[in-house]
């Protein structure tokens, strides 16, 4: 699995571009997408106008009004910067992808039904239509996403997967999908275009990380409504305050009312909301998973049930040696030594696992054999045996009946202990390998489907988070049950057919649960479409990729777990910063309210618990804090808050303590510090 690679948060070029973008985003048409920042922008313009008026009329308090105006603009710019830097990081990823597919030539077949040698016309990839058939030969770049109609070719897909080893693409079956932008290395294929230029898989991915097509996800939309509502509430509170102040004999200037408004409305989360969303999508892309919509990422956080393929996710997928069982009269060490020797040249995973086991569990060391002296017998499908002839010894290992035949006996005549060992291994779903030296039967090697060592803890963690894991396998129920209990999954589907998967998903959904699964074959498509989160493997068929709402470029089914975690992290970041932003309001009241009415009611200074210098410094400090908190939280918004796989109650307790209680206290401290600086610099 290619690990998520994260560039430094603030790359110099990115920051420079983001600063420029922050100013471009001041355009009202762009700002209006974010109601909280739009209001901030409008009042910033208002205060600026007042400043200009005061300037031309040589009024008092110019420095104060000017500074407030500047910091209000900074508030908007910081929010824009947050969004721009998040987009910039996505763009950097997208640009690299885009380079691979600019101006790709295509060979459009004029008579697609005939043979390869028929005439073709040179076209640009952009001109291709869905249904067109193109010829791609060795050295050509595949011009568009499509399905192989004819031929077989090795394809370098590193442009999208980052994996340099070529893969085979051929017509029919599960390996018939090709991706635009990847390169054919050998042979040729005829490809039917399945996605028009501009809507191909890669284009969709670029659009998503770039933010050009970005629409608000459902939860983001709901949160925006909450934030807009709160903005309205505080707009009412501040506007009416003007009336109350008038009654009380205080004339409040527009500048201070604006300052109060902007500090009360949720600018922190309002400014960071879209950055959080983009960064979440970007995190997914860095994990080499592409979501076709932001909605899918949110749904990933809500998943209740994970359908996991056994092979590759829960087990290594290869059968590995776990035990050497000697025949009567032989020691296990002898079996281990012989097995080790016979496997030195065996580069299959099984062979390597035998070497590893003999060394680690049986204290064997690799004997110094040189290729010259030893003769290796490679495994073949006919003999089903491999081995080594060295120093007069002839050691063979392989399928039990084949080895028995080699030593001139049959299963019925084999020693009883040996027979029993072979049966026990078979019954538990493992594979027995016999080992013999010359005519002497040494013992049996137990090969089994090994469960990944850390997977059980992972499932336990998922369970604590309320996610049930279901193992899907083609094994028989007995083997499936054995592996399921060893891996600690909550449920399993044995001898699973795609229909079984679909039925299981539907049943879970009927109980109100959200289901995630991954799949690659065309027959997985209905289940992928039915699942709330369907992760299709990049190596899978076009049908599967169309049906899912995410594509894993590494084709690694384990990633389903990471995908859920990224979804959860996105939602948690959003919630925690919202809580922080709202909790901040308490301190801002204590900073500003006594300052507003100090002349009329000096007694209200009892509320000035922070002992801020002057009314002007108090108001200015609150506004500065309000702007700076946005910029200081950008790293958190981009990286996401620390995620731990624990239950909801524990998560809530932790995040509430940090972001709720922290949100109450931090501004008291921050505003006080800024006030000290502002006073020291005689800014107010």
């Amino acid at each position: 699995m290619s690990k998520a690679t994260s560039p430094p948060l603030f790359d110099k070029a990115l920051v420079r571009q983001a600063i420029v973008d922050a100013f471009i985003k001041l355009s009202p048409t762009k700002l209006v997408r974010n109601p909280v920042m739009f209001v901030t922008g409008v009042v910033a313009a208002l205060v600026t106008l007042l400043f200009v008026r005061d300037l031309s009329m040589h009024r008092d308090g110019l420095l104060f009004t000017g500074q407030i105006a500047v910091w209000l603009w900074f508030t908007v710019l910081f929010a824009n910067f947050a969004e721009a830097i998040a987009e910039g990081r996505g763009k950097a990823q997208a640009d690299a992808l885009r380079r691979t597919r600019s101006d790709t030539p295509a060979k459009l077949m004029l008579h697609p039904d005939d043979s390869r040698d028929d005439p073709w016309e040179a076209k640009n990839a952009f001109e291709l239509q869905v249904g067109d058939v193109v010829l791609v030969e060795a050295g050509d770049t595949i011009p568009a996403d499509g399905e192989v109609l004819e031929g077989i070719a090795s394809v370098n897909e590193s442009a999208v997967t980052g994996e340099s080893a070529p893969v085979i693409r051929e017509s029919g079956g599960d390996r018939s999908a090709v991706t635009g932008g990847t390169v054919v290395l050998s042979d040729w294929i005829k490809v039917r275009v399945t996605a028009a230029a501009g809507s191909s898989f890669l284009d969709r991915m670029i659009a998503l990380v770039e933010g050009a097509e970005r629409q608000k996800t459902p939860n983001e939309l709901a949160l925006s409504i909450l934030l807009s509502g709160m903005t309205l509430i505080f707009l009412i509170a501040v506007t009416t305050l003007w009336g109350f102040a008038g009654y009380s004999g205080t004339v409040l200037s527009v500048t201070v009312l604006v300052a109060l408004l902007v500090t009360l409305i949720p600018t922190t989360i309002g400014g960071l909301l879209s950055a959080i969303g983009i960064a979440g999508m970007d995190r997914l892309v860095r994990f080499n998973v592409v979501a076709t919509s932001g909605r899918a990422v949110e749904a990933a956080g809500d998943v209740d049930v994970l359908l996991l393929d056994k092979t590759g996710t829960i087990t290594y997928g290869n059968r590995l040696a776990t035990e050497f069982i000697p025949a009567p009269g032989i020691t296990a060490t002898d079996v281990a030594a012989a097995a080790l020797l016979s496997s030195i040249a065996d580069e299959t995973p099984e062979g390597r696992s035998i070497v590893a086991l003999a060394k680690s569990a049986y204290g064997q060391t690799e004997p110094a054999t040189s290729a010259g002296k030893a003769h290796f017998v490679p495994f073949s499908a006919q003999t089903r045996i491999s081995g080594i002839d060295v120093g007069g010894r002839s050691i063979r290992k392989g399928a039990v009946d084949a080895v028995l035949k080699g030593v001139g006996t049959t299963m019925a005549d084999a020693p009883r202990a040996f027979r029993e060992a072979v049966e026990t291994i078979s019954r538990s779903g493992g594979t027995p390998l016999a080992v013999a030296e010359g005519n002497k039967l040494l013992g049996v090697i137990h090969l089994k489907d090994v469960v990944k060592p850390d997977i059980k803890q992972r499932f336990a963690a998922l369970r604590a988070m309320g996610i049930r894991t279901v193992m899907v396998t083609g094994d028989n129920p007995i083997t499936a049950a054995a592996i399921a209990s060893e891996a600690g999954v909550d449920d399993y589907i044995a001898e699973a057919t795609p229909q079984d998967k679909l039925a299981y998903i539907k049943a879970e959904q009927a109980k109100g649960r959200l289901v995630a699964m991954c799949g690659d074959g065309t027959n997985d498509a209905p289940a992928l479409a039915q699942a709330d989160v369907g992760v299709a493997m990049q190596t899978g068929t076009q049908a599967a990729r169309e049906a899912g709402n995410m594509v894993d470029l590494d084709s690694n089914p384990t990633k389903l777990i990471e995908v859920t975690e990224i979804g959860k992290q996105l939602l948690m970041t959003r919630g925690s910063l919202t809580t922080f932003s709202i909790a901040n309001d308490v301190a801002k009241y204590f900073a500003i309210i006594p300052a507003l009415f100090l002349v009329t009611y000096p007694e209200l200074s009892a509320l000035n618990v922070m002992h801020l210098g002057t009314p002007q410094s108090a108001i200015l400090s609150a506004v500065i804090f309000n702007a700076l908190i946005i910029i200081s939280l950008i790293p958190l918004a981009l990286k996401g808050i620390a995620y731990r796989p624990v239950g909801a109650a524990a998560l809530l307790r932790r995040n509430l303590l940090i972001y709720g209680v922290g949100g109450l206290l931090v501004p008291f401290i921050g505003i006080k510090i800024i006030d000290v600086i502002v006073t020291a610099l005689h800014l107010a």
Partner: protein
Amino acid sequence: MTVAGWLQIAAVFGAVLVAAWPLGHYMARVFQGEGTWGTRYIQPVERVFYKLAGVNTAKEQTWLAYTLAMLAFNGVGFLSLYALMRMQAVLPLNPKEFAGVAPDLAYNTAVSFVTNTNWQAYSGETTMGHLVQMAGLTVHNFLSAATGIALAIAVTRAFARSSVTTLGNFWVDMTRATLYVLLPLSVLLAALFALSGVPQTLSAGIDVTTLEGVKQTISLGPVASQEAIKQLGTNGGGFFNANSAHPFENPNAWSNMLSIWSMLLVSSALTFTFGRMVGDIRQGTVLLIAMWALLIVAVGVEYQAETAGNPLLVQAGLDAVGGNMEGKEVRFGQAMTAMYVAVTTGLSCGAVNAMHNSLTPLGGLVPLFLIQLGEILPGGTGSGLYGMLVMAVLTVFIAGLMVGRTPEYLGKKIEAREMKLAMLAVLVLPLAILGFTAVAAMLPKALESLANSGPRGLTELLYAYSSATGNNGSAFAGLNANTPWFNTTLGISMMLGRFAYVIPVMAIAGSLAAKKKVAPSPGTFPTRGVLFIGLLIGVILILGGLQYFPALALGPIVEHFLMHAGKTF
């Protein structure tokens, strides 16, 4: 504060709990159509009503039909009550021969009783005849409370049901709330009030010659029966102008405790009804704990502020022991007055047993703030529950994300549509309260009605609009509200506070009912523990209360500091 005082407070809360638990379960059975002990006697009567009105009890309504039925019913109620007041001079049962009520006052009063506010811009014993009192006001004491219960039950069903479009039948819920809940309880309570010395008669009053030799008319009437539903239905509109401070409405310590108990009863019990109907009683209990926790703190602050008294008087050598006794009845004492003040405003009842304008600044801040929090502690009959549920939905939405799932409450996903409607609902309160107060504070004509200047005057204005919008109905007093300006704007506030609030809430209910109920898992945001209670309280204070802080700072808060600095108004 004394231990004895706190013991009295604890005793009343305890007595409410003991009665609310069975009542909550009983109401759940009633509204789920299950048999109860009273079914045998009440059902025949109930059927007669359905038959007369042509109600098909089997046919349930969508949220819109339910809401429209409620609005139509209340509209007719408003018009009939208005007509009754305007024409009382020519109608019978008017022994004191009062004239027809003035148009603006009749409008204000009709709105007031239909919305369960029971703001009284008039003096009952000198304005309203027995017919208006009994056939008009008392009837609406029942109907407005029953409307509240019906709405709360409809909203509850939205959480209890899965993938349906209907929320019940308004006419059935309304009838059951009246016949099975309010009427039997009122009869019982009226008897208890009568036993404790509250008069129950149809005579107009007694003419007596006082010791000074002056002739005086002592007003009487069917007080006990009206008192019962006034408290039970969190109406608060008294038979007498002095309300529960009047010796005939609330003669002694016993009747006072009974008053507080009966105010708290139904709203508290409804949380258990909610818990039972959604299939997890604890979900209701946590709501009640959150409500009561804030309420008990409020009682404590009130009690402390009043027993500490006015430092200026203390310095003058007065009032040192009893605290601030101005405007209070000696027979109730500080503890039971403090509890009454907090409960009647936490509840949207609005009955008063003391003069709120005589409270210390902080003592006056408590009832004002409780009303502004949205009348959810535990709020008006029914309206308290659905108001609290809006807060719970907001809490779940804000904090729910912190556990890494899109928010859900009781298995229902809270999405954009619900947020839009919830924000519409919560916007109504500050708009009406702060908006009207700010306008009135700048309007010379409105300011003429004030008895006090300075912060206390602002408090009087703020209190009036808070009370009207929150459908509380208690008056801070000191404000002559029987003017066309106040009658009109307070009337509008009352309607906004009731109907403009509940329509979006019902729309939320409709939207939630249609959603599939998601099964809970360890990853689900926990809404049945201490943490949720704390969060709920936090959201109520920050989202529900913070917007009033500037106004409060210029009213009671600054007055408190001024008082300690030796300034009065």
